[in-house]
């Protein structure tokens, strides 16, 4: 069960619209390493996770990713508010505008729509946690790439916050992997999959 809290996890206050930048930043909404994919990755993986700490972490990070998706959407919304038709044409935003006006729709910057194939829920705790660590680094790289393209402090500030959270999540997933490995056979972490196999009593 979820409850919505009527606030952004980190404030967004952008006074200057910029449709060109919005088209880049929207990738962190619906792109391959975006916040929508992140939230659905963790919230899908948690059901078959074998350890309480991992279930808790995936639930809590998955929930935080929903809040990050809201921050990214707030940035895109504020960057595309009150655009004139001339602004839309000049910025190249017309290709998005024709289908969505200025509404939020999950897509990558290059126009590829959001797709569940952008994340995995593999049902193997080591595989999934390693995917999660990689996902946090990929998102961190995307935020670094965004930060090279923008210099406006109003936009950079919440982007830097989101980038920092990727690093924290990476750290926590690494700890979850350690917790997991501590409960497996150190001679062969892959001897069985605790999300599916039951260890044989003869072993």
């Amino acid at each position: 069960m979820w409850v919505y809290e009527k606030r952004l996890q980190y404030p967004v206050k952008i006074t200057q619209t910029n449709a060109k930048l919005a088209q880049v930043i929207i990738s962190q909404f619906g792109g391959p390493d975006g916040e929508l994919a992140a939230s659905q990755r963790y919230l899908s993986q948690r059901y078959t996770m074998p350890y309480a700490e991992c279930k808790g972490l995936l639930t809590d990070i998955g929930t935080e990713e929903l809040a990050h998706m809201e921050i990214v959407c707030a940035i895109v919304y504020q960057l595309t508010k009150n655009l004139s038709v001339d602004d839309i044409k000049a910025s190249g935003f017309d290709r998005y505008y024709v289908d969505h006006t200025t509404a939020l729709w999950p897509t990558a910057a290059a126009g590829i729509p959001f797709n569940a194939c952008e994340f995995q829920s593999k049902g193997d705790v080591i595989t999934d946690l390693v995917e999660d660590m990689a996902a946090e680094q990929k998102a961190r790289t995307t935020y670094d790439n965004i930060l090279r393209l923008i210099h406006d402090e109003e936009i950079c500030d919440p982007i830097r916050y989101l980038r920092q959270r990727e690093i924290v999540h990476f750290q926590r997933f690494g700890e979850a992997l350690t917790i997991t490995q501590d409960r497996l056979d150190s001679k062969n972490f892959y001897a069985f999959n605790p999300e599916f196999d039951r260890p044989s009593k003869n072993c």
Partner: protein
Amino acid sequence: MKCQNRYLQAVNEAGFVLDDANLFLDTHPCCENALHYYHEAAERYREAKKAYTKACGPLYKLDSDGDCYHDWVKDPWPWEGGNC
């Protein structure tokens, strides 16, 4: 279906009343009768949540208690049929 855990059943009932009344108020924000109903439902929900938390553990991370262990992370989780 009813939960065998009476504390959880009470939270589910009070929570559903709250969710449903809230939706009505989203489209009728000036309806005084509905507001009154909502406030009463909110109070019943708060009471039910308090009783559940005391008996079974935290529903919200904010209510996690315990000096030596973070109760929030304890099994079972809801999708495992926990406390139902």
